[in-house]
């Protein structure tokens, strides 16, 4: 791979990024002493394609969510922190040392990669045990059993991983990453393929681990997961850091963005008239098949709509927020 110096990256994008971004964005929870992970003006390019573009942040104990659509550079960032990818520019520091070519660091780090491929012929237990032994744990079997119990995989632990569902495979990978009780946990799209119950279980587990003082970084493109789990978030888009910090603060900063809801009711017109009276609503549109209501306050609107409908004796059949996805959030962030 050619390692061109940073000046050869497209100048306009770099200037914009550098001008728009504060040097280091700190998450809400500052830990005691030095940051656990320090990413300093890191870029990564492959020939002409820039995967990560001048990103800086630090991680402290707690849970940080790395948000972004596919292709945003989340996996690249995670792998650079895990020391499996070399930054084209900038430094990645873990526990005070460079992450690249640092095998000793792996005692303290657990990595859950996104890629599906795992040795399909190993059983879950054998896979976790392999991880335990490669970590040179003194009592590998006990640690294996504990890890399997933690991720709730005991029932299937003795079947080959090739027969697992996606969610079970995820849990096996997580067990393998937990078995040596790491201080830092990096998870790449960990909830992929998990059903709601498993997801809740995993979220509870990760929160508990963070409360013990661990540093957890997980990537996702699903808003609800991040909302439930992360203390602070990093929003990545097209290789650049679009937002960072406390999740609610970012949400608040976006309140001048209107939310639009599509409503189907027993009497759209009367409902529209009743809604226009409310201050949280600043627009109604009856031109389409359904009633479109624009509101600047998501939470307030979801509470007032049923109340208004009930008072006016109108039945609500369908209420759909049209732009509550992360994509629309990004569309907003991007159009600014």
């Amino acid at each position, binding site marked *: 791979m050619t390692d061109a110096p940073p000046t050869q990256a497209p100048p306009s994008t770099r200037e914009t990024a550098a001008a728009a971004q504060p040097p280091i964005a700190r998450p809400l929870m500052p830990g005691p002493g030095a940051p656990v992970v320090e990413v300093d003006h890191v870029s990564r390019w492959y020939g002409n394609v820039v995967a990560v573009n001048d990103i800086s942040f630090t991680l402290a104990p707690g849970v940080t969510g790395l948000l972004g659509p*596919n292709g945003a550079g989340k996996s690249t960032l995670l792998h650079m922190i895990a020391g499996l990818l070399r930054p084209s520019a900038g430094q990645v520091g873990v526990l005070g040392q460079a992450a690249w070519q640092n*095998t000793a660091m792996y005692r303290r*780090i657990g990595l859950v*990669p996104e890629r599906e491929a*795992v040795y399909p012929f190993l059983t879950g237990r054998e896979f976790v045990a392999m991880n335990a032994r490669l970590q040179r744990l003194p009592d590998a079997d006990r640690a294996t059993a504990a890890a399997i119990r933690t991720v709730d995989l005991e029932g299937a632990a003795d079947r080959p991983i090739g027969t697992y569902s996606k969610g079970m495979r995820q849990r096996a990978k997580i067990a393998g990453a937990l078995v040596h009780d790491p201080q830092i946990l990096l998870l790449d799209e960990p909830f992929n393929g998990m059903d709601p119950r498993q997801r809740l279980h995993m979220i509870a587990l990760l929160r508990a681990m963070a409360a013990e003082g661990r540093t957890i970084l997980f990537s996702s493109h699903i808003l609800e997961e991040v909302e439930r789990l992360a203390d602070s978030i990093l929003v990545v888009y097209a290789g650049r850091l679009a937002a960072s910090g406390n999740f609610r603060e970012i949400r608040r900063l976006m309140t001048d963005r209107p939310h639009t809801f599509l409503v189907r009711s027993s009497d759209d017109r009367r409902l529209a008239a009743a809604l226009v009276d409310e201050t949280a609503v600043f627009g109604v549109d009856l031109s389409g098949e359904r009633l479109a209501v624009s509101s600047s306050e998501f939470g307030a609107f979801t509470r007032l709509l049923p109340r208004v409908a009930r008072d006016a004796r109108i039945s609500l059949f369908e209420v759909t927020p049209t732009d509550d996805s992360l994509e629309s959030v990004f569309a907003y962030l991007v159009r600014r």
Partner: protein
Amino acid sequence: MTVLATIVEVTLRALLGRRRTALLILLAALPVIVALLARIGGRSPGEESLFEAIVRTVLPLVALVFGTSALGSELDDGTAVYILAKPIARWQVVLAKAGVAGSLTGGLVVASTLGSGLMAGAPASGTLATGLGFAVAAAIGSFAYVALFLAASVITSRALILGLIYTLIWEGALAGILEGTRQFSIREATLALAAAFAPAGSGIDGGLDLAGAVGLVGVVIVGGLALATWRLARWEVHGTD
């Protein structure tokens, strides 16, 4: 050395549990079958030519498949992360994997040599001795080929075709035209070793003398493992978004 044992076990299971092993066994069995057919037909194909054919075709092909996939397939599909994101020195990984691949290759090739030797002319003790000589030489050659191909598989994902080019062109066609390339041919080294081990008069044409052969094999094994270790320490995941 639980770490080494663990890697060995996983690699062994990964390499053996697939269709390709069955196909490779078939390949290794071909010379035996041919020798058997010859016996049945009442003709003797000449043991040396059979053994030489094994060294020329079966040995490099088997070494190629095992050598490039022992580490290469994990590097390509991303499962290498589970071995590399661990506090293990890279040379240990390389040593374990090369050991497994080399042993498997050597085992298959030795079986093929001894099997076809038995088929071709068991009673003659000369054949047996020649066969044993070839078997030992082929076993050593296995490790040399595997070290080379393993190093190649760390450097590039196209190690298989490059290995094929090396075997068919460098060791095959060019050796016929440019005499000098024989000095750098594992095949020639293996044949020279076989000539040294086998009883005199086995008529194997080796462009290398024994010292040259041993030297080449040693350099390839040590150099290959060292190169693989050095490149593995610099290996990066690919295919991330």
